[in-house]
């Protein structure tokens, strides 16, 4: 479904990404991990059309989309969320979801999709509240609900669990699993390895712009290169 072919990104003399090649098949649930500054969000930006790579190609469903603008990719089913909770603060929850619905709103199932997303994430009670008045965890949840409400078939979630409480993380896991069960392909950037490793089937590790490992969670956590990249710190959790 998604293929990255030797993606490189140079910025002001700094090499941010170096020959990253990656393949995500339809229906997979993949994690993208790596220490801070490894280039994960930049990779998402490139995949979703917000940035152009210095070299390489992005192929989505077989078609080259390296130069495609974000809205066209969203129309083709690829939607990403942003680091930090990004929603429309001055609109209500319901209005936020209606915007997310924009692509589908000409179809009959539009309202259902939005309502489903709202219920799925437990936001019903807050339907008419301003997004700005919600507690941080719920704002994050709204952002994910909006991505789901677009009817996307490939979801790129950028650090969805950051700043969430243990309960909220569990809720998030359920949401991801349920959405995945519906057939949506999901790729998640995450720092909370305990959460991520228990969730995904496969993890790709990025370090200083280079893809250093790609495989099932158990193999990744034992990979010496990965441990070295993290300097063992984050694995102290386990």
């Amino acid at each position, binding site marked *: 479904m998604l293929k990255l072919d030797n993606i490189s990104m140079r910025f002001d003399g700094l090499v941010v990404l170096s020959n990253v090649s990656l393949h995500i098949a339809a229906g997979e649930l993949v994690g993208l991990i790596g220490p801070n500054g490894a280039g994960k969000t930049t990779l998402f930006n490139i995949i979703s059309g*917000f940035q152009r790579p210095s070299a390489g190609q992005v192929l989505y469903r077989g078609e080259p989309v390296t130069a495609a603008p974000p*809205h066209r990719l969203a*129309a083709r089913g690829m939607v990403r969320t*942003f680091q930090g909770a*990004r929603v*429309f603060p001055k*609109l209500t929850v319901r209005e936020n979801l209606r*915007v997310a619905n*924009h692509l589908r709103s000409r179809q009959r199932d539009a309202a259902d999709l939005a309502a489903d997303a709202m219920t799925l994430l437990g936001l019903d009670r807050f339907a008419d509240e301003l997004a700005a008045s919600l507690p941080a965890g719920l704002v994050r949840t709204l952002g994910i609900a909006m991505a789901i409400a*677009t009817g996307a078939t490939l979801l790129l979630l950028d650090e969805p669990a950051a700043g969430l409480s243990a309960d909220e993380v569990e809720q998030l896991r359920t949401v991801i699993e349920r959405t995945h069960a519906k057939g949506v392909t999901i790729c998640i950037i995450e720092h909370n390895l305990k959460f991520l490793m228990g969730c995904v089937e496969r993890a790709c590790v990025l370090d200083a712009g280079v893809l250093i490992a790609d495989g099932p969670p158990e193999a990744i956590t034992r990979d010496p290169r990965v441990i070295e990249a993290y300097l063992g710190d984050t694995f102290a959790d386990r």
Partner: protein
Amino acid sequence: MTVSKFSSTLDSLLARLHWAVWVGLGALLLLPFVFSSRYLVYLGTLLVLQASLATSLNLIIGVAGQFALSHAAFYGIGAYASALLIESAGLGFWGSLLPMLAIVAVFSGAIGYPALRYTGGIHFALITFACGELLRLLAANWDDMTGGPQGKRLPYSPAPLLGIDFSDAKGLYLLAIAVLVISVGVVAAIRHSRFGRALVAIREDEILAASLGIAVTRHKLAAYVLTSMLAALAGSVYAPFAGFISPDLMSAGESVALVGVLIVGGIGTLSGPLIGTLIFFAIPELLRIAKFYRLVILGGVLVASVLFMPEGIVGFFSKQWQALRRRAKGG
């Protein structure tokens, strides 16, 4: 009274207040017919046209959030284009409308497309300002076509339609009201439509909107072109009304005054531009303050509004009302 009863009373009271504002505005519109004073009809027509301009400007600035400073220029283009089409191409007033709108669509599209590719207001504001001034200079210098900087006398008036005679002042006043109704109608319809929701999303956060599938530049461009066409429509009525058009119509200062009207009245609200127009134009006119001092006061009102009441008068009250409503519902 129980809490819930109080809050629902408050709610209906506020809803009624909203209606009252619109009824009041409607009543004002009828005044010139009631009093049959030539001055009132003249003032009324001028005000109604200004109110249409403010309303259509609200579409690009208030709803879409893009700061356009070319509005007065398109008002003038509408007047000049329709006058030229009538005089040189021999079309009647009604026949000239569609070609005039097409011309304006092309112009505004040509200006808007490259200008809107940039995120952010400053570049767009500067480009529309400069293009507006260029258009004015064009009108001032193309003497054969436009009569040059002195302007052009226009002896025509629209042919009768639906039994209404447009060669007299009252007929033109009705025509102006029609333009206002169209402008308000278009903006109201857009606000409740899918297109309008997309514009609001773009105004609030372009990048987020794009990530959700909204074609940002296309939407902004559509709003800009539509806005400019509405301005031109008002201009085409101004021409026979004033009997005289000049490049001064198109000056950047006029565009700025329109922005002032919006800010004072309340950007993004539907009645805001109308109330703003009343405050900006009607009150000073009626108080007969000397021309220059009038503008000084308006400038002062604008500065004060921006500093102390950035949502404008209607916006300010609208926000209070909505906050009250929410508090009332919350019980």
